């Protein structure tokens, strides 16, 4: 029986391991499917990581290296090249690698840190032919940054998620021509800074409220048709624009990878596609915690680390017998707030405040975030600007919770 097994050695897994270690857990094992630690950070060679966590602007690999270095002199064990096939309800982890073969390990606590995957063409049913040349932005990023191959010369990017924007710049720097970035929503899905430094810096047009309505070419992509959409996101006939391109990059959203989670019978929040979690990042299966993009998709790795450290510390508390067996308060959402993480808060836990993350469904200016217990507003915070592409965080003081059964987070003008 191991004290703590962490599934995934990306940013969440690494920070969770360090968080648990700092709280006194010695027996920690990270299972990582790739040969090296760091996860997706390894292909994110652009800068912009670590401003919150390290007060420095780092590239993805550098950020990962900080954590790898932090774990160097600890007792944390790492099994790389190891894929977890199954998690059972009794916290047995079934895994496969080329050295030990197939094996099962039981743990007192498990932290799920599998990250997320990209939505594909299929998920959004883009019609047309199915030639080579349609890539998720992340796949193109891997080819370019890890292996040194350019997958396209004339590129249209569908979706204004951060990876797509970053890749628009990256491919431009390597000599490709990025013709357009097309976004079905009336606002960008990525960080505003990326619109500026990845599109505007290079004169790449951004078409909001547009989508790809046809894909041409039966071998390699030869072109796409882009149409304007109405408020219900239906293409408007007569607005078609044709682009001659050899590549369509998709940056149309990320989906938490929760196949293991579902297999273990853990409850999933359909809004986040991640497990329901308490404020200590524990899932509905006791002793199993989750953190990072497997819970909800983050924009910033710094916040992944923060959440993961909390998961690690909470797992430590479980192992050391400090178990928060208290009444749970359900966090509901209203209006423009699309979800919150955590979805439940346990009363009387150690920390004085609860870090509550959420997203809004539309762009909002000069608004007030409100938390109410049904009778009264227990917390407010002002924001000058909120956007769906940018995760919001509030620190909710525990005393604000009082004896409420549930709390509702909303955004008011």
């Amino acid at each position, binding site marked *: 029986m191991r004290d703590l097994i962490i599934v995934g050695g990306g940013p969440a897994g690494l920070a969770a391991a360090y968080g648990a270690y700092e709280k006194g857990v010695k027996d920690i094992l990270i299972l990582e499917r790739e040969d090296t630690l760091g996860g997706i950070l390894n292909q994110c060679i652009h800068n912009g990581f670590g401003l919150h966590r390290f007060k420095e*602007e780092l590239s*993805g*690999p550098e950020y990962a*290296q900080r954590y790898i270095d932090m774990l160097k002199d600890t007792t944390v064990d790492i099994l790389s090249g190891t894929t977890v096939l199954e998690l059972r309800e009794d916290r047995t982890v079934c895994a496969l690698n080329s050295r030990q073969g197939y094996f099962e390990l039981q743990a007192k606590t498990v932290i799920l840190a599998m990250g997320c995957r990209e939505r594909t063409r299929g998920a959004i049913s883009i019609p047309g032919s199915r030639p080579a040349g349609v890539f998720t932005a992340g796949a193109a990023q891997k080819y370019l940054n890890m292996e*040194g191959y350019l997958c396209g010369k004339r590129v249209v990017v569908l979706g204004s998620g951060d990876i797509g924007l970053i890749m628009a710049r990256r491919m431009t*720097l*390597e000599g490709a021509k990025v013709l357009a970035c097309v976004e079905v929503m009336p606002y960008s899905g990525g960080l505003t*800074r990326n619109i500026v430094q990845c599109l505007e810096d290079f004169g790449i047009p951004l078409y909001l409220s547009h989508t790809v309505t046809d894909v041409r070419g039966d071998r390699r992509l030869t072109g796409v048709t882009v149409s304007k959409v109405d408020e219900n996101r239906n293409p408007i006939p007569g607005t078609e624009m044709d682009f001659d391109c050899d590549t369509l990059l998709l940056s149309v959203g990320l989906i938490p990878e929760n196949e293991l989670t579902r297999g273990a019978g853990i409850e999933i929040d359909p809004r986040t596609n991640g497990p329901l979690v308490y404020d200590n990042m524990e899932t509905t299966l006791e002793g199993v915690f989750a953190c990072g993009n497997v819970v909800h998709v983050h924009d910033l790795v710094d916040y992944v680390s923060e959440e993961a450290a909390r998961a690690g510390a909470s797992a430590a508390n479980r192992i050391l017998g400090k178990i928060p067996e208290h009444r749970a308060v359900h966090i509901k959402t209203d209006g423009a707030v699309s979800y919150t993480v955590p979805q439940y808060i346990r009363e009387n836990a150690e920390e004085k405040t609860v870090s509550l993350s959420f997203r809004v469904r539309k762009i909002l200016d000069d608004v007030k975030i409100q938390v109410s217990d049904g009778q009264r507003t227990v917390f407010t915070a002002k924001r000058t*600007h909120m956007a769906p592409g940018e995760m919001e965080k509030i620190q909710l003081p525990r005393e604000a919770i009082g004896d409420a059964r549930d709390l509702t987070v909303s955004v008011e003008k």
Partner: protein
Amino acid sequence: MKEMICVTCPKGCRLKIDEQTLKVSGNSCPRGTVYAQNELTDPKRVVTTTVPVSGAILPRCPVRTSAPVSKKLMIKIVQELKKYSLTSPVKVGQVVVENILGSGADVIVTRNL
């Protein structure tokens, strides 16, 4: 008055700068002031790319400029770096090119390989 979005950090502050006095508002940290003033005179960005590396688990090593460089130099720096290659082992922070194209910034390795 010119408006812009600060790209220094992911917060994306909406800045306003007076073109005459170079006075900046809307920033939530001092970096915003520097950013806005640079944007008016000589916009600066960090350049990130890769350089071939032999003997490592990967054929490419990620690198970046140690500080923001003039935006005009971005593509030139990526092109210039095509002249360079590395041999494993390399360490984070190792300098690949000093003061690349006179930009004032070094190009440094960003991954141990």
